[in-house]
């Protein structure tokens, strides 16, 4: 059964997430080939200090450590995760793959930021025996500024 197009426009959220310094570090370490725990040794070679080193980051333009650009996945995925698991949509999660992803980054993300994410289903269509579901998420920071917009595309095989 194709996903019913009547669900276009359905909204999920808001979801609230507070960014922690150690979580920022763990994400940066894991991407850069390290172990996501600063307790297990030095940061991986070549990692940009702005992503983990408070002292180096203080004298840089942002004044603090900042998150890796795709760190937003940790919180901005919430509406997408809710949509694909929404029982009314009837998606078989074993047949689902993440097809496409886009992030637009309007603000750097810092430790202590509180992000509130909402999302809505913007597209449902089928092509070549596959269903496509697109969710657009918007995450605002504690000042009410749009920090991240994510466009999440799921592809469901039949």
């Amino acid at each position, binding site marked *: 059964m194709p996903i019913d197009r009547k669900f276009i426009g359905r909204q999920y959220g808001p979801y609230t997430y507070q960014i922690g310094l150690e979580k920022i570090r763990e994400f940066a370490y894991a991407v850069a080939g390290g172990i996501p725990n600063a307790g297990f040794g030095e940061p991986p070679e070549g990692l940009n200090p702005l992503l983990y080193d408070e002292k180096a980051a203080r004298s840089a333009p942002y004044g603090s450590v900042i998150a890796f650009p795709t760190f937003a996945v940790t919180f901005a995925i919430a509406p997408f995760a809710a949509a694909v698991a929404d029982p009314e949509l009837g998606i078989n999660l074993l047949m689902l793959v993440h*097809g496409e992803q886009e992030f637009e980054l309007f603000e750097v993300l810092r430790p202590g930021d509180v992000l509130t994410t909402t999302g809505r289903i913007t597209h449902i269509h089928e092509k070549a025996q596959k269903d496509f579901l697109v969710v657009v998420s918007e995450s605002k920071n504690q000042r009410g500024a749009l920090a991240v917009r994510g466009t999440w595309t799921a592809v469901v095989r039949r």
Partner: protein
Amino acid sequence: MPRQFKEGDTFTHVRECDAYRPIYYAAASGDFNPIHIDKAVGEMAGLGGAILHGMCTMAWAVEAAILYLGDPGKVKRVRVRFSRPVSIGDVITFEGRVTGIEGSRLVAEISAKNQRGEEVLKGATVEGSIA
């Protein structure tokens, strides 16, 4: 001297998906979908074992752009299509090329190929601020 960026600039980055990378990335990102951490589930899904998160491959493409731009805070937009799974042991080569500069906004297209020359990402683009 401020750093000069120009159209046609190229950059390269290589990352290997080591045996524990999907588990480490799962821990960092919070995505513990069993296809990434359980070989048996990956096999059941027809993927030949656990596969790396597409989002980790995407992060590596962004890492390639950060190494070129010099500042992770300058990345303003990133878009990818996941065209092929990345398995444990795969070595991914990222090749970026600056295709446009308009004002303070730079656009780079990035290809991502495994050790067999197969594309694991398609249409990957990163936009950066060079203000």
